[in-house]
């Protein structure tokens, strides 16, 4: 427990990477329309964690809420690879550095974590809205170089994720939305399965095997985002994967 405590303390903390970035809401064109003929999406002001949740932060959570330890979690809420990169249920160890994003966490566990810090998972639209920004622009999506940067991460084989907060910070003050890990969103399973966007008289299976992309994607050139949607749509709430983490969000009027 002492070692665990040290790990928690050693998690990098600075004003730049701690806490939440305030993001003004707005209207934007999502790659996934909200429904037939509805091109614009309204995003209310919200606050988004500047970095993904780290192993150290998640360790503190499972210590406080032992029902989320990998040896105690209910099978309904996390599959067999939940936190398997950790050395043991309460020690992340060398395979999961304290300042690296926690991965192999289920949607249920991620949701519980955010609830424990009086936050929630961001919605897809919130995530997409924040992730449209590069270092200087709030919407860099039409820049081929910006897209290429995202794709270049996809083109590399998976490895242990690097520390959070080291990449470029975007125009909202948020780190690591691209090129570090996939991230859970609260409504991941609505992207393909139950939103209006797929209710277009199409065969639902056809839509599903195409990852919903080609039919409902408004912006067919934005492959990088399409692939993230494909990834999210392959998941179920209990699933965990080696490159999937999360960050929390809060409503705009919360501190």
């Amino acid at each position, binding site marked *: 427990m002492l070692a665990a405590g040290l790990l928690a303390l050693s998690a990098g903390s600075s004003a730049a990477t701690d806490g939440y970035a305030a993001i003004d809401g707005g209207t934007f064109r999502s790659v996934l329309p909200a429904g037939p003929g509805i091109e614009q999406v309204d995003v209310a002001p919200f606050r988004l964690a500047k970095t993904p949740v780290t192993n150290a932060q998640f360790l503190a959570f499972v210590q406080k809420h032992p029902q989320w330890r990998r040896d105690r979690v209910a099978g309904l809420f996390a*599959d067999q*690879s939940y936190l398997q990169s950790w050395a043991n249920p309460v020690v992340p160890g060398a395979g999961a550095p304290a300042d690296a994003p926690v991965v192999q966490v289920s949607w249920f566990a991620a949701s519980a974590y955010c609830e424990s810090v009086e936050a929630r998972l961001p919605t897809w639209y919130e995530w997409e809205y924040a992730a449209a920004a590069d270092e200087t622009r709030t919407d860099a999506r039409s820049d*081929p170089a910006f*897209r*290429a940067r995202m*794709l*270049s991460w*996809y*083109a*590399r*084989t*998976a490895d242990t994720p690097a520390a959070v907060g080291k990449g470029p910070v975007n125009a909202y003050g948020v780190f690591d939305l691209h090129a570090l890990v*996939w991230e859970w969103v609260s409504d991941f399973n609505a992207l393909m399965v139950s939103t209006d966007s797929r209710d277009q008289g*199409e*065969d639902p*299976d*056809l839509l*599903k*095997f*195409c*990852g*919903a*992309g*080609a*039919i409902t994607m408004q912006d067919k050139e934005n*492959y990088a985002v*399409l*692939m993230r*949607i*494909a*990834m999210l*749509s*392959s*998941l*179920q709430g209990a*699933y*965990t*994967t*080696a*490159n*999937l983490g999360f960050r929390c969000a809060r409503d705009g009027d919360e501190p």
Partner: protein
Amino acid sequence: MSKLYRHLALSLLCAALLAGCGGTETDTAQVKIAAAGPSEQHPAAIGGDFGPPQGEPVHAVLTSPPNVPPPTGRDHPAKVIVELEVIEQEMEISEGVKYTFWTFGGTVPGSFIRVRQGDTVEFHLKNNPSSKMPHNIDLHGVTGPGGGAASSFTAPGHASQFTFKALNQGLYIYHCATAPVGMHIANGMYGLILVEPPEGMQPVDKEYYVVQGDFYTVGKYREKGLQPFDMQKAIDENPTYVLFNGSEGALVGNHAIKANVGETVRLYVGNGGPNLVSSFHVIGEIFDRVRYEGGTHYQENVQTTLIPAGGAAITEFHVDVPGSYVLVDHSIFRAFNKGALAILKVDGPEDKTIYSGKEVDSVYLGDKAADLAAVTVATEAAASGEMTLEQQIKAGAALYNGTCSVCHQDNGAGLPDVFPPLAGSDFLMADPKRAIGIVLNGLSGPVTVNGVSFNSVMPPMSQLNDDEVANILTFVMNSWGNKATAVSAADVSAVRSNTQRTEGAAH
């Protein structure tokens, strides 16, 4: 045959099997009818359900390219379990060039799957925990929406299962259909599944597995290092590499496929695409048979067979002569500038009656050969001692053109003040022996021709043999108003032997 249970009722083959992700699916539902008469003679020619699987479940033997699993060897439908794992990994695409391939089974193309028509295939798709991407599989040999894609969509570190009945025999591509489909295919996610006819494939000596694919990298062809995928090049259909079995080195050198003289070779050839259509050809061979498009019918005596992206063909040929046979996409710049080359090495005894090897290696002069026909005639006549003045003049004229006419001009008039005339030349006609000497040894310094002084240089023409010099001089001394007796090769030879060869003269 009486055991065959067949759905004679209409069975609908949903066109969604072939539909991609375009969303504009044409609903050309195809009706298949097993006609009673012909179906008895050609039972394998149409889709068929031979009833429930019999016996214990069988685990399919999967092989890495270029190897092909052994025949199923079964005379009844079985339940066949296929376990295929998706692995994302860096591999060499060309020497010193790495690429992150997404693979079915760790190879490009993916593992070869071999089942029998009527088999019930229980398919397990596993996505390795180290994968970044979700994947699925659309097998073109599946009858059902998406070819299995929807049922096999699998997150990293997870597995999916679905079951299909292999109703149609043939050779089929399988591929990943996860969005963006093109990128998953461009990264190597394709392979072949063979659905054997009920009676099995006719035995051959060698079977190999080859799949063409096009690849799109940010760096140029053979630019070293890890090369990322280039989406724009893929959209533009402008590949950096066009390859057999996923690498420039896949089927050459020590990795060449092999056969022996006298054997029959069968190639199961697929084209994964994502974009290009292949003009598949084996240099130096003729396909005895091609089951084009991987279907039931075959064409015979084929030089080049077209293999569409997302299609396949079964080619067979007998190898008669040893040597290296080069598999190419005969859209030929792909072969020699983008890597679409593979080697079939055939060992065994030569058969000179079929192919001699090089028998003659001679100079070929193209257009000049026709011009020099007169020279040939003269040479032959000289050899037989029956050469006429006329033949000599004709031969000389042909040689004059291109040797002498450059300076002395076609009409023998020369160029004023530079090159003296030959036509009506007193200098030339005064002394044939001197003329022979000038041709052999050249001439420099002042001369007076028809009262005009020239002072330039003529190089020695000692590359000409005695016959040629004799013919040229006979021509010039009997043209443009000149008139003289023939110059013989013996005359030239005499002068040649009496004169010192000029230092550094051409030979």
